[in-house]
């Protein structure tokens, strides 16, 4: 049954579940525990929660140190600050030393809404997937977010999990098990492949419904794991459909669209259209208004799908 719930809601509560299952998990937060939901871990066990204050660089460093003391550590803050402000700490301490730190800030993407461009992080996937050794998970919904947190907690090494603020429809059922390195075909089709990530998966599914009314059969793939990327699932689909549209609430520079372009360019070139924010900052507005404004809604995806098919 479809619910409407933010991906961030799957964060703190899954940390609580994992601790109750016996995992030695801690969260290091930078003054946003209510917003990110890491407060749920603090409420369970104050010793498993550390607030460093508004100090994201120190947040990553302290998380690194705690991991050296044997903890599996998740970090907080918003994606703009929890990746961008502390990029060098994530690069040189977490990834270079291959530490058990899970960078999982919330409020990624344009769907942050009214806070505006300063807070709408559109480059995080680009930054994080460029780091050697970093795993990058972009959950499509609340259930996928819970799976992402669980995978990160139980897999050694650095992770980035992209979590959002806005309430979005669920696309998975409760109890769905997802895996690192996998994409999921949520709808089969033959005319065009819609490769989506995060909250754009739900929009791609709506777009597929719209396209079906026109007699266009769209295949919808959720790229849950941007890195490592599930190349076989992508290539099998584009070999069948002959064209592809990428859909992400992220810059078209360096994110899912770039990852897909790399793979099809090297393996099976087909017409590619990209839905995303075209190398610009965001602006204030409600999430649904912003998705429409930047062409990230179902209508925008359907339009790109028609364009891709026309280029075959």
């Amino acid at each position, binding site marked *: 049954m479809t619910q409407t719930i933010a991906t961030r809601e799957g964060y703190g509560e899954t940390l609580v579940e994992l601790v109750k299952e016996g995992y030695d998990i*801690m969260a*290091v937060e930078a003054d946003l525990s209510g917003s990110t939901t890491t407060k749920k871990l603090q409420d369970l066990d104050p*010793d498993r929660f*550390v607030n*460093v*204050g508004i*100090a994201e*660089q*120190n947040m*990553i*460093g*302290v*998380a*690194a*140190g*705690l*991991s*050296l*003391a*044997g*903890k599996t550590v998740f970090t907080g803050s918003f994606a703009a600050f929890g990746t961008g402000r502390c990029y*060098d*700490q994530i*690069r*040189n*301490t977490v990834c*270079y*030393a*291959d*530490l058990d730190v899970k960078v999982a800030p919330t409020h990624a993407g344009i769907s942050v809404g009214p806070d505006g461009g300063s807070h709408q992080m559109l480059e995080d996937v680009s930054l994080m997937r460029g780091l050697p050794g970093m795993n990058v998970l972009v959950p499509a919904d609340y259930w996928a977010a819970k799976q992402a947190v669980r995978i990160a907690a139980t897999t050694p090494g650095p992770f980035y999990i992209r979590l959002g603020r806005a309430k979005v429809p669920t696309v998975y059922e409760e109890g769905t098990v997802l895996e690192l390195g996998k994409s999921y075909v949520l709808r089969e089709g033959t005319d065009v492949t819609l490769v989506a990530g995060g909250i754009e998966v739900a929009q791609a599914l709506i777009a597929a419904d719209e396209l079906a009314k026109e007699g266009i059969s769209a295949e919808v793939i959720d790229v849950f794991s941007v890195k490592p990327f599930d190349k076989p699932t992508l290539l099998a689909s584009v070999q069948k459909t002959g064209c592809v549209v990428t859909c992400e609430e992220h810059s078209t520079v360096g994110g899912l669209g770039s990852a897909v372009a790399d793979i099809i360019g090297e393996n099976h070139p087909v017409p590619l259209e990209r839905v995303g924010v075209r190398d610009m900052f965001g602006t204030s507005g409600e999430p649904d208004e912003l998705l429409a404004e930047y062409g990230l809604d179902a209508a925008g995806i359907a339009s790109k799908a028609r364009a891709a098919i026309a280029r075959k």
Partner: protein
Amino acid sequence: MIEESVDKIEARAKSMRINIIKMLKEAGSGHPGGSLSAADIVASLYFGGVMNYSEDDPQHPERDYFILSKGHAAPVLYAVLAELGLIPEDELLTLRKLHSRLQGHPDSKKLPGVEVSTGSLGQGLSIAAGVALGARLNQQRDGGPKRRVFTLLGDGEIEEGQVWEAAMFAAHQGLDNLIAIVDNNNLQIDGDVRDVAGLDGISSKFQSFGWRTIEVDGHDVSAIVTALKTATLLDGSPVCIVAHTVKGKGVSFMENQAGWHGKAPNEEQARDALAELGGGE
């Protein structure tokens, strides 16, 4: 724990300085100034009966930690690991070369004995604070000895804002198992720290953040050992030891010269340096 006499530790520091010059000459690049300034501090830490650390089991789960926040002083760390017998002395000459474990800045994935990779400045104090907090939580849960974390920072390095984020955090958490040592050699790449960034009053800065501080002559081994041991006895807050040092210490033509921050000696300069240190061929 290794506890040697002051004379022996001084001999260790001298041997480390000789190795620093030899490896940098062979590498043809690297950072002599801040490695030489820190040699007495690092020798005292490992051989002065301060750190719970054994060359027989460098990964012992109850060991104390040393994090070289000023990662460009990698040669002083490699030199002390050689003194401990954890690196063969001839391997020191592979510093900075292709396929060497002795990277230009310490790499914990390549070299056991390096607790965590460093090199990008200003990050070691945060990491050390995280280890100190984690060790304290583990001790509360599991018992066992109080594990201490030592970290060595450069004075130029503490211009990085993250250092003060970490200083605030460590004091707020009451991390009395954390001891930071500032190698106060007064010079950074572009000149005197006071001219470049107005850096002065390091002790009072740390005090205002809630730390206890100790000032010491960073080339007086007996005084350094006393300061380190005192620091381990103080409860309730982290301790910062401000060690007054001379950049390039031990090689007269390198002393107090910012130009020797990141330049390796050539053949002739190395010969002169080694003659002065008593390590000539």
